[in-house]
């Protein structure tokens, strides 16, 4: 059994311990210990019933901890011997865990860390590596998060929207180190989609699949960003695209549009174009109109300006841009792009260089500098 399969059992086993009477924080610790043990023992001695093995070992670890705590406090051992046989596994244990880990009382970073550990079954070390912080820091973040939700009853249903925001954050982090967070986010969203029938869960899953499909084309050999229009579409993963489109169509058929479905629809239209020139920008603008209506987000308006520039020409794009706050991230980069399309390379080069100075990350800074350099070289010759 590989580690990924092992990890999928995490939320189920936590759920079983909680129903036997363990509190969430202790159950989560015990299951994490059991996972570590499994990684050590299973290769030589694989169990016939992995879940049963994990439940037994985690429960024993939980009892050990309780006994140690209790004897430390010179109190009588109250939890004894054989576990009370729990009720048959409830289907919504995993779902409750998603809600708990994305509880609104948690900060986004804490919710992300707790979700990756308790639902995703990643170790603290893996999560720390993925977010480039020391392991001790991540351990503290997780234990504080567990304290924060310690009073939350495990049986109360939560808000799907908060769970989706957490999964979206994980997906957007991409991947660094040996944990592929984008793939992990897809796995967790797939699992959620299997637990709950909700159009926006499907919308987010479709969005992730459609974007993940482009990943092989998104960076060049030296790590540089390749913009959508220049990507080698032959590198896009058609299997993921087909699945994303299916999931999206089923969601849209329910006629309850949400922001993730709208974003996925835009991604699907890009995926549908064999070449950049074949992109149906008019429809994309329509979806951005929906997205702006649903979210009123300035970022959606900014992206809409780009789409308008493609659908109705750069002047129309610049007009759409004119009403937006110039302090918006990437506003200057969009302005540069539209000015170049409008046949003004001098202004575009200046704006690209300016955008590079305020870029939020190194690959973008390099990309924007390269755009400025390309235009400056043209202007010199």
């Amino acid at each position, binding site marked *: 059994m590989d580690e990924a399969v092992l990890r999928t059992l995490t939320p189920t086993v936590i759920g079983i311990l909680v129903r036997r009477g363990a509190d969430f924080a202790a159950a989560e610790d015990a299951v994490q210990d059991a996972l570590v043990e499994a990684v050590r023992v299973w290769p030589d001695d694989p169990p016939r019933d992995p879940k049963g093995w994990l439940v037994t070992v985690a429960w024993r670890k939980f009892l050990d901890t309780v006994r140690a705590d209790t004897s430390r406090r010179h109190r009588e051992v109250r939890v004894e011997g054989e576990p009370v046989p729990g009720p048959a596994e409830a289907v919504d244990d995993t779902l409750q865990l998603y809600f708990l880990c994305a509880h609104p009382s948690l900060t986004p970073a804490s919710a992300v860390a707790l979700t990756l550990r308790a639902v995703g079954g990643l170790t603290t070390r893996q999560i720390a590596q993925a977010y480039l912080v020391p392991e001790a820091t991540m351990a503290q973040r997780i234990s504080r998060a567990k304290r924060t939700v310690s009073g939350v009853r495990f049986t109360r249903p939560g808000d799907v929207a908060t769970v989706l925001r957490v999964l979206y954050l994980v997906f957007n982090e991409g991947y660094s180190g040996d944990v592929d967070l984008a793939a992990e986010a897809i796995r967790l969203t797939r699992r959620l989609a299997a637990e709950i029938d909700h159009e926006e869960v499907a919308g987010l899953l479709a969005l992730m699949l459609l974007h993940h499909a482009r990943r092989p084309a998104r960076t060049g050999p*030296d*790590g540089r960003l390749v913009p959508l229009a220049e990507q080698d579409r032959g590198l896009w993963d058609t299997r993921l695209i087909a699945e994303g489109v299916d999931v999206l169509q089923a969601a849209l058929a329910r006629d309850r549009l949400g922001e993730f479905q709208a974003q996925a629809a835009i991604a699907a239209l890009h995926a549908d174009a064999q070449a950049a020139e074949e992109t149906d920008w008019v429809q994309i603008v329509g979806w951005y109109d929906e997205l702006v209506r649903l979210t009123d987000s300035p970022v959606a308006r900014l992206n809409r300006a780009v789409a308008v520039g493609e659908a109705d020409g750069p002047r129309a794009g610049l007009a759409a841009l004119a009403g937006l706050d110039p302090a918006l991230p990437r506003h200057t980069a969009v302005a540069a792009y539209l000015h170049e399309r409008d046949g003004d390379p001098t202004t575009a080069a200046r704006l690209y260089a300016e955008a*590079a100075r305020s*870029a*939020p990350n190194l690959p973008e800074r390099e990309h924007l*500098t390269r755009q400025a*350099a390309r235009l400056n070289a043209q202007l010199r010759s």
Partner: protein
Amino acid sequence: MAKYLLLKHYRGAPASVNDVPMDQWTPEEISAHVRYMNDFAARLEATGEFVDSQALSPEGTFVRYDGEGRPPVTDGPFAETKDLIAGWMVIDVETYERALELACELSAAPGAGGKPIHEWLEVRPFYGVPPTVTE
């Protein structure tokens, strides 16, 4: 082994020999530069001398405490300050000479016209730990 900080400045270091802003290079020159930098870091990892490398955005603010219950006092972005750090690399090497040698390699990264930038880098030793054996 001793740790050194190789410090790169947006502003504040003496001008490089090949001092042309990157947006005036050709795209191929930018690619060559990026490749050189990536190769350099990879080589240091392979020799067991690499510790850390980070880049900083050019935006920054000075801030200080202004007394109980008062909001932080900020100053900046500081267009007028002389010194602006762009990033660093931390290396762990046998000797000071090795630190200088590596800084020189970094400074030789290609720039405009494919020629070395000859950028000035600041080399700063970290304080180490006190030795266990003292007599």
